[in-house]
């Protein structure tokens, strides 16, 4: 027996909450994949903690998306019963963990955006989103610090760690353009003061990335070509596999609890 997928009526604010919730859930799930495998015990715990922060953010955002949609979709339904094409996350966060350097660079690229983004969202005209932002900002501030300190040490470490860190920066660079995209739905919310225009955070993100890469003795790629499509549900080949693992239990045993 399999559960039928749901379809969500994506008004601008519902779509907004789903996009940010999907970013958090997918990245949180990726970090959870390190549990038991991280390079050292200390980091096993750190990555799991960060993953749990993100999954907590996803829960709040999904719950709010479900309330605003008003069709009876709670956080679990939104996480477990949407198909891949209905996921609205950035392509960056679904990229596989790779080696430790890939995981850290992915986390840095995301957190260097998420931290100032949530800080700006604390002034949202939407009280619920402002409250979620206030909680998320404290978490993402630490995520940014954690990833920055690690990348500095990997880049400025041994020949091998430097090479791997540079490989990760180069491999993930083309997924960073999507952080700053907007579309009509989001422009409506920006005009209403509900959402923040991500383009206004570009300079902050650039400054953070430049500072960390410089300290890490790593080169900033000069390629300007960027991947896109995640916000509209066009994903890389990796998301389907991730969702298969994340959703299979609820799809196979609908409503299962323990």
């Amino acid at each position, binding site marked *: 027996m399999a559960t039928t997928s749901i379809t969500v009526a994506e008004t601008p604010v519902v779509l907004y909450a789903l996009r940010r919730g999907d970013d958090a859930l997918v990245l949180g799930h990726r970090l959870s994949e390190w549990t038991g495998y991280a390079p*050292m*015990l200390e*980091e096993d*715990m*750190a990555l799991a903690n960060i993953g749990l922060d993100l999954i907590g953010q996803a829960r709040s955002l999904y719950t709010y998306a479900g309330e605003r949609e008003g069709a009876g979709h709670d956080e679990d339904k939104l996480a477990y019963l949407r198909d891949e094409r209905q996921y609205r996350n950035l392509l960056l966060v679904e990229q596989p963990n790779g080696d430790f350097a890939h995981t850290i660079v992915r986390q840095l690229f995301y957190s260097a955006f998420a931290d100032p983004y949530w800080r700006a969202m604390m002034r949202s005209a939407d009280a619920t989103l402002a409250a979620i932002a206030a909680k998320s900002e404290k978490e993402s501030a*630490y995520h940014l610090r*954690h990833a920055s300190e*690690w990348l500095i*040490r990997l880049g400025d470490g041994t020949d091998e760690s430097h090479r791997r860190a540079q490989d990760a920066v180069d491999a993930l660079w083309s997924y960073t353009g999507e952080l700053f995209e907007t579309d009509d739905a989001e422009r409506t919310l920006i005009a209403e003061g509900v959402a923040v225009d991500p383009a206004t955070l570009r300079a902050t993100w650039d400054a953070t990335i430049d500072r960390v890469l410089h300290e890490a003795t790593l080169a900033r790629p000069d390629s300007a070509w960027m991947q896109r499509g995640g916000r509209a549900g066009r994903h890389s080949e990796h998301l389907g596999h991730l969702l298969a693992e994340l959703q299979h239990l609820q799809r196979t045993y609908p409503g299962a609890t323990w």
Partner: protein
Amino acid sequence: MAEANIPLWEVFIRSRNGLAHRHCGSLHAADAEMALQAARDIYTRRGEGLSIWVVPSAAIVASDPADKGMLFEPTADKIYRHPTFYEVPEEVGHM
């Protein structure tokens, strides 16, 4: 594991304002900043702390267990050092 080359640190957490930092465990980290982060991630997950100290384990000078007799046993019969011969006035309350 990579830990052979990574120094060991002792972690001290202060739970509330006014209380002392207490030793709560150890961890491996490459340097002081990473040790502080790892201490936060491992030892303050349940709201245990408001302040963290990390100290290189190598910086701790420890007494030799073989000296136990010389160092600690002579105090066993000095019961007069315990403040149990004084009457504490009730108004003082909990000391």
